[in-house]
């Protein structure tokens, strides 16, 4: 029993011992790990507990509140992160864990943020707007392909076009589609392709990781697609939903094969369409001709065309009708005239002309009388007036004054009222009541 006590250690002591081993190892004082977060738990006191894992393995992690507040993102399960910290043992749980000092999103997460920012910016600029989408021609004659000259994408595109619409010409503009220079190379080839007389361009690559496809999320590629004179079908991978190139392209295909299917019709469909048009054309024209034939038939069978004399007969009858009407009309006029004449002839006045004269004679007589009376009256009035005037004139007549012994002196018919009017030796006339004296002026006073 005593031996047993000597030989066996307590859990606490072994865990404490193990802890010292961790802490003595300098390498574990500062480690850099990359992995995916799982079992993430944000404790109410602000410490973060989670597991970091890769495909095969996992490690517990803790990030204390004072470190966690420095994070520029909210960690969550499934997120790939880069962490810095020390590794030690937690004796109470018998576990070792990483005490995280710093944590940031792994490339993928950062790329995602970049992607969202660029997407928003270009959307605001209107690069994704529907009205900028160019129509894709239905029957292209020449197609440009911008992708790698090797790999599944070009193979899929060419074999799809060959199968569906082999009469279409293709030109490959070989481009890098992944790596740091890929974006610039894609842009260069889009510009080169625009120098050719192409109906449509397919631009893309096969599937890959988001990093592999990243060139298609670059701003310069988006702008080159937007500025392309020739419509572009994007055909990027199939592992993520959409690249920026997909948004800005005139048409988005999920895969290179899909893009080729969108770019060309099938010969068979095309033949069917032509045939359908031919049938419609024939039916329409036959229908039209039948219609015309029907109209011609109807006309041919018409009563009038079959009995041309009826046309003449109809006219004859109409002429008779008109003549009858004309005759009736004239007779009517004459009759009305005769009636009017008869009325005039039989009038009272024509039969008794004096009937007009008598009343007129009486009227004249009465008028004459009235006129005479009026003149008589008027004359009386005038006479009275004249007498009044004569009396007045009598009073004012100079001759009446002369009668009283006064006389009028005139020179050259001017009445002399002032001695200034004449000079000595002037000849003056002196009018008396009876007779006139012609005198010479001797003196003026």
């Amino acid at each position, binding site marked *: 029993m005593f031996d047993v006590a000597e030989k066996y250690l307590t859990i606490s002591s072994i865990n404490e011992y193990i802890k010292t081993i961790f802490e003595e190892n300098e390498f574990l004082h500062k480690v850099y790990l990359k992995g995916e977060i799982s079992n993430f738990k944000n404790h109410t006191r602000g410490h973060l507990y989670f597991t970091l894992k890769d495909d095969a393995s996992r490690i517990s992690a803790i990030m204390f509140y004072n470190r966690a507040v420095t994070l520029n993102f909210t960690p969550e399960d499934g997120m790939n992160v880069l962490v810095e910290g020390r590794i030690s043992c937690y004796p109470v749980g018998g576990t070792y864990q990483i005490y995280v000092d710093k944590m940031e999103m792994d490339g993928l997460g950062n790329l995602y943020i970049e992607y969202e920012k660029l997407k928003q910016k270009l959307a605001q600029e209107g690069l994704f707007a529907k009205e900028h989408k160019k129509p894709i021609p239905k029957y292209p*004659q020449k197609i440009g392909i911008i992708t790698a000259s090797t790999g599944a994408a070009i*193979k899929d595109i060419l074999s799809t076009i060959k199968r569906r619409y*082999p*009469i279409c010409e293709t*030109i490959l503009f070989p481009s890098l589609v992944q790596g740091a220079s890929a974006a610039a190379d894609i842009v260069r080839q889009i510009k080169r392709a625009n120098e*050719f007389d192409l109906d449509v361009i397919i631009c893309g690559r096969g599937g890959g990781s988001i990093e592999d496809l990243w060139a298609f999320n670059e701003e310069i590629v988006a702008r080159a697609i937007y500025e392309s004179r020739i419509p572009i079908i994007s055909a990027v991978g199939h592992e993520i939903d959409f690249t920026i190139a997909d948004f800005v392209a005139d048409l988005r295909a999920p895969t290179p094969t899909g893009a080729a299917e969108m770019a060309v019709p099938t010969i068979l469909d095309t033949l069917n369409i*032509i045939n359908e048009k031919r049938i419609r054309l024939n039916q*329409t024209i036959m229908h039209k001709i039948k219609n015309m034939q029907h109209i011609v038939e109807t006309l041919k069978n018409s009563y009038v065309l079959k009995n041309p004399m009826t046309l003449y007969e109809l006219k004859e009858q109409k002429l008779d009708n008109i003549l009858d009407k004309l005759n009736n009309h004239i007779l009517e006029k004459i009759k009305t005239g005769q009636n009017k004449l008869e009325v005039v002839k039989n009038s009272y006045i024509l039969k008794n002309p004096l009937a007009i004269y008598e009343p007129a004679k009486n009227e004249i007589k009465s008028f004459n009388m009235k006129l005479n009376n009026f003149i008589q009256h008027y004359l009386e009035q005038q006479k009275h007036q004249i007498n009044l005037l004569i009396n007045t004139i009598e009073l004012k007549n100079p001759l009446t004054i002369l009668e009283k012994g006064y006389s009028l002196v005139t020179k050259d018919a001017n009445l002399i009222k002032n001695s200034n009017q004449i000079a000595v030796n002037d000849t003056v006339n002196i009018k008396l009541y009876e007779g006139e004296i012609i005198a010479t002026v001797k003196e003026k006073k």
Partner: protein
Amino acid sequence: MEKEQTFESALENVEQILKELESGEIDLDKAIDKYTEAMKLIKFCNEKLASATEKVNKILNEDGTLTEFNVEE
């Protein structure tokens, strides 16, 4: 077909003529002219499809030349 007719424009013209004919507002003489024209266009399209041999795939090289391109199997 004075100017260079493309397959697509030929088909569009046929459709246009069809619509005119189907509208019925066209006299017979004109309709027959249009019909003849449309039939010519259809013949053109068919010939274009039938005669077109398989086109060679090309690649634009760095020096700007176009050469035949074959996918590596």
